[in-house]
């Protein structure tokens, strides 16, 4: 049975109009993979609208092309050349290129919504993410040693591609966790371990463990932020300046713990998912400043939000829930009070 075939039924009119008491009715069993796909589509829609900000259509150093050109520095020459080449195209045609970028992201976001266009949209999102990672994020500063996970390393947009792979539509059960449905349990666990091992590594290599570098990273973000976020930033800056190296090592330990957690029994796996979600939610707010969105001029919400989304894909589901979803009829008769909306 295909879980995506699960249908929604509503209470009969008579029962709705005449009573508000408990009754038997058909309610949908939520398709978690579909819900996560919609969450990903929401982030793509946010990105598309962010691309429509006036700053994006502005040529020159104060506009989008200037931001792209700035990413070329600190990269190896041949990579920097490709980034500069792309930035010059955007600089010469700011309206047409930027409008095209926005349209692509609208197509991905709305494409994920429709079951007929889901696969092409996810495929396009993978290609687009890799292109943006190269030309729009300067390969996440991986080659310049500045890809600290505190700052969104190895590049927030890579997580869009990873999420697209893990949310690839496939009939089956969400057991033992949603991410396993698309690629299988072993591959999903391998990807999880690889991602968190990479994050652990990036936490302690290059400038990722330098107190000054971490301090400057936060200080460079807080221009134009609202007052309450600036105050949080001041605390983060002070913390990194005094305990930057310790924080980097602690983050690496957390990442390694999370990496191992998926191989443990569900109780401990859940704890590792919670740990990952909380740590990166805090980083998203206190270090990444929501990707700089609140200051205007951001192109995406940065890695923190997506890593939290990724972690939730690995939340171990109870046997009860998984078996409930897998009921062959596609709709489950339950007794519940009131309609869903």
């Amino acid at each position, binding site marked *: 049975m295909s879980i995506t075939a699960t249908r929604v039924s*509503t209470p009969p009119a008579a029962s*709705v*109009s005449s009573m508000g008491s408990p009754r038997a009715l058909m309610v949908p069993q939520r398709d978690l993979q579909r819900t996560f796909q*919609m*969450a990903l589509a929401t982030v793509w829609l946010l990105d598309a609208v962010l691309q429509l900000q006036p700053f994006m259509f502005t040529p020159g150093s*104060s506009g989008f092309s200037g931001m792209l050109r700035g990413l070329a520095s600190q990269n190896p020459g041949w990579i920097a050349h490709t980034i500069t080449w792309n930035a010059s195209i955007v600089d010469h045609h*700011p309206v047409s290129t930027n409008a095209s970028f926005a349209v692509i992201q609208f197509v991905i976001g709305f494409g994920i*919504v429709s079951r007929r266009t889901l696969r092409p949209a996810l495929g396009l999102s993978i290609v687009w993410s890799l292109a943006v990672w190269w030309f729009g994020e300067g390969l996440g500063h991986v080659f310049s040693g500045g890809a600290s996970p505190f700052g969104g390393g190895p590049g927030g947009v890579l997580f869009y591609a990873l999420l697209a792979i893990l949310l690839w539509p496939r009939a089956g059960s969400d057991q033992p966790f949603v991410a396993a449905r698309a690629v299988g349990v072993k591959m999903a666990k391998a990807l999880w371990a690889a991602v968190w091992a990479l994050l652990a590594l990036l936490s302690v290599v290059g400038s990722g463990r330098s107190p000054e570098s971490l301090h400057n990273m936060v200080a460079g973000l807080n221009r134009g932020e609202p007052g*309450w976020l600036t105050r949080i930033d001041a605390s983060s800056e002070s913390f990194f300046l005094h305990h930057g190296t310790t924080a980097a090592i602690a983050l690496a330990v957390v990442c390694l713990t999370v990496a191992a957690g998926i191989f443990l029994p569900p109780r401990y796996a859940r704890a590792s998912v919670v740990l990952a979600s909380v740590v990166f939610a805090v980083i998203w707010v206190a270090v990444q400043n929501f990707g700089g969105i609140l200051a205007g001029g951001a192109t995406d919400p940065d890695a923190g939000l997506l890593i939290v989304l990724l972690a939730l894909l690995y939340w171990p589901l109870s046997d009860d829930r998984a078996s409930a979803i897998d009921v062959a009829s596609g709709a489950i008769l339950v007794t519940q009070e009131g309609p869903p*909306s």
Partner: protein
Amino acid sequence: MTATPSWLYYLFGALMLVVAAYSVVLLLSSVATRRALGWDVDVSHLFMGLSMAGMFVTRWAFGGRDVWELIFSLLLIWFLVRSIQSLHRWGPHLSHFLIHTVMSCTMLLMYRFPLPASSGAMSMSMRGSRLDPGLSFLLAFVLFASAIFTLASPNKGASHHGTHAPAYAMSGTAGSGLSTSRTGEQATSVVSIDQLLATPRLEDMSHVVMCVAMGFMLILML
């Protein structure tokens, strides 16, 4: 110097006018077919469409700020009461009135804290205070999520009618609740217009367009 993509604002302004015009058609259809559900959403979309068209394109704006604030305050109270009534009647659930409450609240906030002049949108002038960017971002994210989940929902038309509309429960789609009191050509005409325009998919689409446009305006306010 930030470039102002005026064509983009005209595009969104035009879309808002289309949504407002569509809401008028739905309201007329509701009267003609004596459909009791969804008219409040149509009224709110009409006012939101007209006012947001004026926000995107200055010369399309009309009416004083105080009048719009009063309208959206009343809509906010209306949808808040309907949300509470729905919760009281059906127990804890995500009522469709909630998103219309959020939208009314957003409109009110956009009038209370207009865009700074440097933001590029054309209608609002500089004022002292500014809507907290965190709240702008949160509201925009909620609206984008509403747009996506509305499109994905198997319950077409639920953004207008909820899933407990009688017509919805009978047919699986909303917007087909015709009165049986009319006869002959008049009824046929009403039926054909209603079937052509008051379709759940179009109703959902108008909600999606409104959410995206409102979210865009909030992003501009950052």
